[in-house]
């Protein structure tokens, strides 16, 4: 099922023509509405007229998370607040969130993009979709929700957690009631690790036969082909990948079709580039580099050449499904030190900043990330410092609790904190190793 054939199946020429005209408009729009960008372009000796099409994209300066931080909270917004209908935020590198905004039209386009991905997973108006992404500042929940409504399916907004309730809803909505067509939850949207967790609970309770689940659309964290195979074979469903990032929009920037030959980018709205993370110059199809996006139609927060820090490659060429949009290959990692733990962006520097702010602990720490029973775990080892050392266990336990609380506030996920002897944490080349990621992805 293709949601918008006129856009998703364009010839390369048509697509590039559309992208070029939208890029020219977007650059003009940004230049005249965002002071920060105007100054940046002026500093690079650029005027909007210098950009005549997508071939000129490399003339434009990059945007990074630092630019969003420098202009915190809304300095890059191109519209007055009266035009902004929604705010989302993701965690930033130093504890400050990255704030993103949407106009009514941005939300419509977002819903359109999510709808396209849902159609790739064959989800339509007859489906009942359980949205088990977190609702709130995180773009996952509401982004998915609006997409599901847009395709006309029934949305069950469960958000994350409360596994028991998740399963009850999944099961009970299938029961026939008067005047109600019997249709249980047929699709679920959540992080792949949470779906693995739900899979285990479903197996434990032995309720798979009572479910009518046929597909899942998972994203917000990296996962492997092996995880997809497990989910598909254990739940007897089709599992699809959805990609996005809040700065660009949220989930729905790209998604994969039934052929699983890469994620189709909604490139009429988001112009992709792959650059070498070292030289920052564009690299060719199939080669791995950093993914960069330029929004082509965003109103509230248009971004020019935003460096996602995600490492992947792009291929063009028609897919067996009939779509002609460029496709992203599997993500191979990050060009910075950001970790994605339970779908939440975590930077090691956040831990350091939080510990320093506490003032009563050493800022020497080690983060150990693992996946236990398919759920991400985060353990933070903190060195005991003589300055705050107490010989009473009670005090040390209080300290552990306090560190846990402070870190949870900063990271938005609860870590397990463990006190260790000083100088036990490995140091290499004068720089301490801060992260051990034991997840096998």
């Amino acid at each position, binding site marked *: 099922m293709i949601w918008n054939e006129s856009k998703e199946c364009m010839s390369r020429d048509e697509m590039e023509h559309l992208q070029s005209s939208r890029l020219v408009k977007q650059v003009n729009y940004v230049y005249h509405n965002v002071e920060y960008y105007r100054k940046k372009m002026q500093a690079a000796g650029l005027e909007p007229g210098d950009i005549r099409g997508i071939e000129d994209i490399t003339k434009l300066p990059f945007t990074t998370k630092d630019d969003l931080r420098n202009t915190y909270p809304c300095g890059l917004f191109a519209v007055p607040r009266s035009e902004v209908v929604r705010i989302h935020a993701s965690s930033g590198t130093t504890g400050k969130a990255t704030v993103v905004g949407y106009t009514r039209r941005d939300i419509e386009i977002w819903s359109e993009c999510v709808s396209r991905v849902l159609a790739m997973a064959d989800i339509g108006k007859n489906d009942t979709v359980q949205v088990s992404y977190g609702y709130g500042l995180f773009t996952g929940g509401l982004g998915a929700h609006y997409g599901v409504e847009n395709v006309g399916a029934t949305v069950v907004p469960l958000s994350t957690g409360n596994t028991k309730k998740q399963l009850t809803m999944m099961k009970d909505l299938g029961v026939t009631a008067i005047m109600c067509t019997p249709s249980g939850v047929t699709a679920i949207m959540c992080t792949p690790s949470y779906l693995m967790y739900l899979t285990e609970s479903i197996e434990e309770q032995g309720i798979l036969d009572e479910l009518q689940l046929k597909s899942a659309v998972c994203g917000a964290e990296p996962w492997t082909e092996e995880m997809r195979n497990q989910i598909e074979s254990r739940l007897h469903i089709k599992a699809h990948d959805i990609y996005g990032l809040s700065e660009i929009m949220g989930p729905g920037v790209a998604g994969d079709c039934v052929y699983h030959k890469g994620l189709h980018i909604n490139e009429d709205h988001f112009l992709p580039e792959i650059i070498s993370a070292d030289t920052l110059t564009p690299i060719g199809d199939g080669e791995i580099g950093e993914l960069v996006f330029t929004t082509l139609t965003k109103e509230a927060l248009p971004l020019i050449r935003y460096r996602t820090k995600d490492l992947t490659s792009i291929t063009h060429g028609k897919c067996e499904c009939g779509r002609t949009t460029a496709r992203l290959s599997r993500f191979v990692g990050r060009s910075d030190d950001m970790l994605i733990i339970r779908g939440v962006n975590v930077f090691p520097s956040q831990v350091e900043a939080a510990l320093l702010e506490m003032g009563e602990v050493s800022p020497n720490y080690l983060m150990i990330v693992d996946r236990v029973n398919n759920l991400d775990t985060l353990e933070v080892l903190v060195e*005991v*410092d*003589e300055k705050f*050392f*107490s*010989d*009473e*266990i*009670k005090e*040390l*336990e209080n300290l552990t609790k306090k560190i846990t609380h402070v870190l949870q506030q900063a990271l938005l996920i609860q870590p397990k904190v*463990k*006190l*260790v*002897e*000083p*100088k*036990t944490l490995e140091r290499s080349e004068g720089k301490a190793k801060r992260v051990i990621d034991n997840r096998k992805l």
Partner: protein
Amino acid sequence: MILKQLSVFVENKEGRMKDITQVLKDSGINIKTLSLADTTEYGMLRLIVSDPDLAKAKLREAGFPVSITDVLAVKADDRIGFLHDMLLKLDANITSIEYMYTLPTEEGPVVILKVANPAEVEKVLENI
């Protein structure tokens, strides 16, 4: 009497206690008594030694988090009810004990107490 007690933070790792005793032995320090409090992740080793200041310096050098804490040493009578009488006195003076262990001496056992205000408690316990 108020004694200087050495407190050492020890991770639950194989051979860690031996590393501490090695340092003390090499520094010619005698251990009079010790108590080990443990949690699932780490332990707190409390020691009464012949030279607490030297021991602290040497252990610190070896990378252990170590501190010196004032504890109260109370000579115990070897009789039924002594500990109970002592606790009654402490209770009457609303003093709580953080931890307690004993030190054997030639003149009999001594009770080591960690309290918030050892000097005051010492006066309270003068005649049990």
